[in-house]
């Protein structure tokens, strides 16, 4: 490497260093948060903390979320040098299950970090895993019982399930499954000569207060039209 090239590289490094020193700089404590809301929680809330470690103020131009189920709020529009704050992201769990990843895109007037993507990863624990959540019979099919398998979630101590059918046209019976925390719900229509539908309400003995209800659906399809 000749002298000219060495000088050029040094100048480049120096300019990058100087640019870093004088600019506004919003430093985030974490840009990814892992949340594990409790089973009864309706929301998962993440606090993305920041500090302006630069020499000039930083203004938030926009904050938007990747999904209507998540709302993000800033405490202030402008952050002075040395100031701290946070952006609060509230994720409404609704009927979601499993791992949910939601992004919050923050746009500032800091040219070096104009856009920052904050990621909220919520792992929603499941009390029950129900499979399938729907059983059906074709019109005229033999009205044999069909099985819905219900498994307790990880570390969820369920010993008993109560199942009720919204329609007297279906019988639902709970039997122990092949493993601890597993149950078989045998669902059977009394007849399949007419279209009927029912919602099965499944109530485990945990959590007791407040109790959580789960649902499965059963239906006898209309008999095929005869020509």
């Amino acid at each position, binding site marked *: 490497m000749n002298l000219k090239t060495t000088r050029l590289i040094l100048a480049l490094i120096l300019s990058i260093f100087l640019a870093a020193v004088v600019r506004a700089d919003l430093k985030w404590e974490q840009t990814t948060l892992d949340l594990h809301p409790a089973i009864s929680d309706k929301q998962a809330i993440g606090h993305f903390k920041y500090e302006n470690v630069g020499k000039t103020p930083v203004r938030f131009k926009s904050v938007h979320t990747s999904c209507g189920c998540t709302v993000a709020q800033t405490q202030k529009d402008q952050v002075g040098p040395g100031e701290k704050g946070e952006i609060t992201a509230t994720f409404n769990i609704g009927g979601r299950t499993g791992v949910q990843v939601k992004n919050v895109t923050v746009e500032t007037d800091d040219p070096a970090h104009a856009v920052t993507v904050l990621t909220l990863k919520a792992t929603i624990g499941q009390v029950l895993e129900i499979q399938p959540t729907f059983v059906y019979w*074709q019109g005229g099919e033999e009205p044999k019982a069909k099985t819905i398998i219900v498994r307790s979630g990880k570390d969820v101590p369920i010993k008993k399930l109560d199942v009720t059918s919204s329609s007297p046209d279906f019988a639902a019976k709970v039997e122990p499954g092949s493993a601890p925390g597993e149950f078989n719900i045998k669902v059977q229509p009394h007849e399949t000569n007419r279209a009927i539908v029912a919602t099965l309400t499944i109530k485990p003995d945990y959590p007791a207060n407040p109790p959580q209800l789960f649902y499965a659906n059963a239906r006898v399809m209309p008999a095929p039209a005869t020509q």
Partner: protein
Amino acid sequence: MKSSLARQALVLVALAFLPAIAEAIYFRDRVSWQAPVPASEMVTVAQARAWGDNAIWVDARPDEEFARHHVPGAILLNEDRWNELLPQFLAAWSPEKRVIVYCSSQSCNASSHVARRLRDEVQLKDIFVLEGGWEEWLKSKK
């Protein structure tokens, strides 16, 4: 001459790897959790329209967006109110019909989530995700 060229090429390749490795380490927590929807489970607006009455349209967007406008005849089924909305979808479903799930760019991956749950939890077949979602359907009307 040749060995010098080869050495320079190797150095360049090694240098190219450095930022790639650094990026992989820096973004290690930002892997995509959304598995892409396989092409066989996607459907274009033209294909979906051609199915006519043999298809059920499912709107996976939030209630407010559905209330503003939706594909005519579409059934609302979103994850905000999954348990409440599922029975009305199942009442309209029949085994011979295909199901087309759509969302919009504002409701992220809602359609792929809803389609996955219909396949895995409800155990239905012939579930498709609309390519380009609501915006693409709107474009096709112009």
